[in-house]
């Protein structure tokens, strides 16, 4: 563990050396990259910034190391590992990449692969995020779980606003719920991309779902997801995404009433994203709609659909070299289910505004400071204001 604490120093030295390619022989090259970010902020008592790893994005030290072993221009092995808050390292990506035909823009990737859905989850390095927090669609934890069932609608409604720790009646363990899209975990499977800079389509066939990526399949269901990206002009990128897969774990299926055990419980999602850049300004936006087939021990919740719609709009402006200002407005709405008192949203609507500034001390050392206001309609803490600072170094 002490060695881990030295890693930032190692990274600092590596960054100073600007050394990304550490070995090459003929057409084979080994490249490494990395990033260390340290974020400090007050305790988020409303758990608005918790991830499905149980950590707040505003109080986190994260080290990521990525490796690419390229064999010529057509084959590669890529991996990325992360250590968060000195916890044990997690493998974030591990896959092979192949371009079967030289000169043709068709690529295949297999393994623990980057998601094709949406935009944000592929914005790999911290410098791509002008703020500190993640968009709610990719991070905010709902009260739905994949490994257990609520007894009924009343229990689900009782948990509203407590996605960070969901414990339905009758079950001992409380765990975090599912985000709409897991922005910091990738799924396992194969994907293909075809197209060039103007238009491209990517599709993936994976083990888990957007909200619950998996390495090993545990429900015999697969997900198919796809995105079409169009660049009608330089600086403008438009994307449409869709996904469908089975999210409920096998253990949870055994808790279903006998008549429902042969059903499939899917997550479906659609997304639209855009990025427009001109001069010193960048504008990004994304909307994600998703629906889960509700799994519950009793009807009428069993058989209903739990829907959620999230969207955000984000802007960044470089005021002078190395200094930017940014802001993001972010909302999530949830659809109704039939509760004891009539139709009600199954989760508490939530919204956030985050504004911040960033300063590049050098090209590879960046500082950020943000102010964040969060609100939702339920939970122990319904509103909070947070300030956080972050230092990042990459190479």
């Amino acid at each position, binding site marked *: 563990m002490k060695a881990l604490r030295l890693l930032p120093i190692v990274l600092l030295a590596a960054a100073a050396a600007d050394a*990304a390619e550490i070995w090459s022989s003929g057409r084979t*090259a080994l490249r490494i990259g990395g990033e260390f970010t340290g974020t400090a902020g007050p305790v988020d008592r409303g758990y608005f910034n918790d991830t499905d790893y149980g950590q707040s994005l505003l109080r986190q030290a994260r080290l990521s190391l990525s490796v690419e072993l390229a064999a010529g221009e057509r084959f590669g092995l890529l991996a990325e590992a992360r250590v968060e808050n000195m916890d044990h390292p997690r493998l974030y990506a591990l896959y092979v990449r192949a371009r079967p035909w030289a000169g043709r823009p068709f690529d295949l990737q297999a393994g623990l692969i980057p998601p094709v859905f949406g935009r944000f989850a592929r914005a790999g390095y911290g410098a791509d995020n002008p703020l500190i927090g993640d968009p709610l669609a990719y991070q905010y934890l709902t009260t739905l779980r994949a490994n257990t069932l609520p007894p009924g609608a009343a229990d689900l409604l009782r948990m509203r606003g407590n996605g960070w720790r969901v414990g339905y009646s009758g079950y001992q363990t409380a765990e975090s719920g599912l985000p709409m899209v897991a922005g910091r975990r990738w799924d396992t499977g194969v994907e293909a991309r075809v197209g060039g800079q103007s238009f491209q389509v990517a599709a993936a066939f994976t083990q888990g779902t957007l909200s619950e990526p998996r390495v090993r399949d545990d429900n015999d269901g697969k997900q198919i997801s796809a995105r079409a990206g169009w660049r009608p002009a330089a*600086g403008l990128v438009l994307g449409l995404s869709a996904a469908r897969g089975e999210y409920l774990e096998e253990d949870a299926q055994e808790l279903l009433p006998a008549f429902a055990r042969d059903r499939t419980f899917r997550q479906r999602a659609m997304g639209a994203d855009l990025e427009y850049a001109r001069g010193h300004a960048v504008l990004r936006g994304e909307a994600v709609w998703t629906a889960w087939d509700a799994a519950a021990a009793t009807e009428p919740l069993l058989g209903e659909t739990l829907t959620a719609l999230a969207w955000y709009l984000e802007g960044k402006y470089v005021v002078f070299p190395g200094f930017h200002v940014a802001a993001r407005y972010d909302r999530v709405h949830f659809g109704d289910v039939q509760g004891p008192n009539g139709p009600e949203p199954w989760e508490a609507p939530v919204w956030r505004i985050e504004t911040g500034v960033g300063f590049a001390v050098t090209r590879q050392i960046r500082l950020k400071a943000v102010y964040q206001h969060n609100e939702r309609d339920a939970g122990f803490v319904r509103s909070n204001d947070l300030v956080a600072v972050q230092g990042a170094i990459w190479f």
Partner: protein
Amino acid sequence: MVLRPDRRRTGTGFAFAALVLAGAATAHAQPGTIRGRVDVRRESAPPASRPSVSELGQPPGSEPIDRRRSVVYLEAAPQGAFEEPERGRVVLDQRNQTFVPHVLAITTGTTVDFLNSDRTYHNVFSLSKARRFDLGRYPRNQVRSVRFDRPGVVRVFCDIHSHMSAFVLVFAHRYFAVTSPDGTYRIDRVPAGRYSLVAWNEGQERETRAIEVPPGGAAEADFMLR
């Protein structure tokens, strides 16, 4: 001394003097030539692309960069050197996600036109002390210009494509040369006298030689940068 490289990048610290005179230079003697060859034995670690882990496929390739191009310059310029301002314009192209040329040597007052020849946006910027700028994002066939008024080494990058980098060396005099692909160089019209001649490569390899330029003749100096 007339050039002050960015210490953070070069790792070599140079002292700085605003006015530099080479005491041995003979102002009225017939000028001579300095020529020679720079042999770069150890190539600098290239700032290659970071691992493209979050890409959905192979990212577009970039042009190979000749990192053996060096710059040879007089550390102390002759008297009168600063009275010869050459305020020209040069183009630094962005082609196939590569700055072309990779090393540019200019005199103070020169304007560099950063042309974008790619189909994608580029965002040229520098955080170097000698010239800090950010040109924002601009499309193909458009040019953004920067005038360099202070001597020094300016490291140039693209904010969108992290593997793109270039060096702009800004001199307060005209006694410098960028080596040709075979490593040879030639600095003409140098007043006769004794000088310190410096060979620079990628901000890391650097060697200094004392030379004497004879009136109307040539001085030869070869360097080997390891």
